[in-house]
């Protein structure tokens, strides 16, 4: 029988990130309460997106947090206790699609512009605006693609960048529980 002492786990323990998806009532202060559950335990939120969902009055929060799976599960259970929470799940290791959008301003001096555009084409990056000195690219994709694109353009020089943070959705409406059953919260037996 293994015992889990949550207090003993360290915030800086690099055990990978978790993608959490939380459906909440769109009410005043909900975000600060949920964020508070993480900050109170000393965990940093790597990315966070909040916007309306398909149901009126409900918002979807997608959050990326760096912590161990068991701790993420415990925090999610705490999230699930908040009156404003409708549903909370850990999408990591589930069959889901993930996307992130970035806008990045890359230095593009005369002479390098064509090669830059060719390389950008590989990632289906679109030029959304351009000046004689630089291009602003828009790239959409999962973390792997976005990071790969950044690796390619970094040598040209990145002047500015903004990322939306990850959004994620199950491929299948009924696959809310991952293969290990990690999300099987004992709400009611």
């Amino acid at each position, binding site marked *: 029988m293994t*015992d889990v002492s949550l207090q003993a786990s360290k915030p800086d323990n690099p055990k990978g990130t978790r993608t959490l998806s939380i459906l909440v*009532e769109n009410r005043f202060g909900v975000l*600060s309460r949920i964020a*508070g559950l993480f900050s109170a335990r000393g965990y940093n939120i790597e990315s966070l997106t909040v916007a309306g969902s398909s149901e009126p009055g409900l918002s979807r929060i997608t959050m990326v947090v760096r912590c161990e799976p068991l701790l993420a599960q*415990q925090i999610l259970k705490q999230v699930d206790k908040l*009156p*404003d929470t409708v549903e909370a799940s850990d999408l990591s290791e589930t069959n889901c699609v993930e996307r992130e959008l970035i806008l990045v301003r890359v230095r593009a001096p005369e002479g390098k512009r064509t090669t830059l555009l060719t390389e950008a084409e590989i990632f289906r990056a679109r030029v959304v605006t351009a000046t004689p000195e630089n291009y602003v690219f828009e790239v959409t994709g999962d973390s792997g693609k976005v990071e790969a694109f950044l690796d390619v353009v970094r040598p040209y020089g990145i002047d500015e960048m903004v990322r939306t943070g990850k959004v994620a959705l199950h491929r299948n409406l009924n696959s809310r529980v991952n293969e290990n059953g990690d999300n099987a*919260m004992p709400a*009611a037996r």
Partner: protein
Amino acid sequence: MNAQLDKKRHPLAGKRMSGAEMIIQVLAEEGVDTIFGYTGGAILPTYDAIFRYNVEHESNRSEQIQLIVPANEQGAGFMAAGYARATGKVGVFIVTSGPAATNSVTPIRDSMADSVPVVLICGQVARNAIGTDAFQEAPVFNLMSSCAKHVFLVEDPEDLEITVRTAFEIARSGRPGPVVIDVPKDVQNWEGTFKGEGMLHFRGYENRMKALAAARLTEQDCLDFFDLLQRCERPLICAGGGIICGDAAERLREFSQKFQIPVVTTLMGIGSVDTTDKLSLHMLGMHGMAYANYAVMDCDFLITIGARFDDRVAGKVQEFAPRARYFAHIDIDAAEIGKVKTVTWFHVGSAQDALSDLMKGSGDFCKDFSKWLDHVDELKTNHVRNYDRESPAIQPPYVIECLNEITQGEAIICTGVGQHQMWAAQYLEVKHPRSFLTSGSMGTMGFGLPAAIGAQAACPDRLVIDIDGDGSMRMNLGELETATTYSLPIKVLVLNNQGDGMVRQWQKIYFGNRFSGSDKSLRQKDFVKTAEADGFEFAARLTDKKLLKKTLTEFVRFKGPAFLEVMIDPDACVYPMVGPGMGYKEMITGDYIVGRDAAENLPESPSKLTDSF
């Protein structure tokens, strides 16, 4: 059809009312008979509404709402908590904005940590002044949202009435807790139409509450449970505060009697079983009874109900209940299952329903645990709670034992926090649930006196005793006057050891006797004069051990509020003690309780225990 609808219609529906009047009207409908609170600028309209409500109901006093005004808002919060803990009803306190709201943070966090249903209504500066650093403005939503079960800031006055109603529902449903409503002053002054019905909707929460209510044990769940029980020889129940707040004490007693399973309780679980019962082993944990902790070490099946393996209970988690082959856990809060201890069998739902279901689903289960019960009896005899009975100084457990003789376990006891709290938890006999009110999780010094005032206001016919320490007493000393002002006949018993005893005990063990900040022997405080000045007609100090029983009897039997300071041995320590983060096998039992050989405490060792089972 229309007639039926009309019948259901609230008699006041459609009436024009101010926001403040709506608040009081909803409180009255929620059955609130007592409000604790302190008025001030931003809550004036609501206090005015209480006054007018009571004038309107002059002819029927039972419909009036009693207002009890403390010396400090923290006191009001603990009074509301004492009221709620003693009755199970939602306690209500109403305070103004800014400093009053920040003074209320402590009782809100305390109530959250101990799952106590209270509703706090805070005045707030007018909506157009929020965020301008207005006079007496504090960010109540932000402050309280990290501490409370839920917080509302009423921005739309049309939502005020239904918000107040919803707050009560959230406070008492599921795992109970405190709910805060922040009401801007202009919302209190706003005038609108009273609806007489309606709630705010929380889709997820409502579904979870429905699921909880429907969460009954299936036949298979029961079979699984009794299969585990069948395979065990040494079952033990660990009962927590969930038994008390879930009103499951009666079921638990039936359950433990039916299957002859002994019970240890957590601090919050005291009163879930009659401590004088043969199957009761009193409290477990850091300062648990030696025999209770030994029973935890020896059991092979630990059935935890409404408790959460807190660090003061479990100590070193890996070594907790080392011989237990199985753990069962029943809790109303899904987040508690597997949080600290991985369990073999669990159920999320009400303790009362779960225990009923188990008793119904036990089929022809029958197992003789008499060998284990004999072992437990032996533990109780061999490692009986004890202290220096020959000492000329008054030993605090002796005071508690004398008190038991007088109250026979029938009183409501409140405590502060520290050594006196632990002595009370160890030595008090408590026959009923909701009779031992203490700040368990938060450990808030100063809890006892206001909690006793709240409990007495809720239960005017019960004997309510605050067992306090001199340190805890100082924290909310101002509330002595509240007891006399409202003629609440509480008995305040201060065990004075001239300092913060529990801190000193740790300083003795871990800090080389350096009593930094904890020694108060040179302080000038005269508690008896203080009590007299606050109107206590019975106020006495006791130093002579021989007079203890007589004085204590006079004190308890006194008709009105009474104050007794007992000068106890300042060197007395609380034993047993399991050091922080240690396992039960490292328990120190002191000079007067017989400890067990270290060898017997090792789970691997071929002890007498494994031979006999």
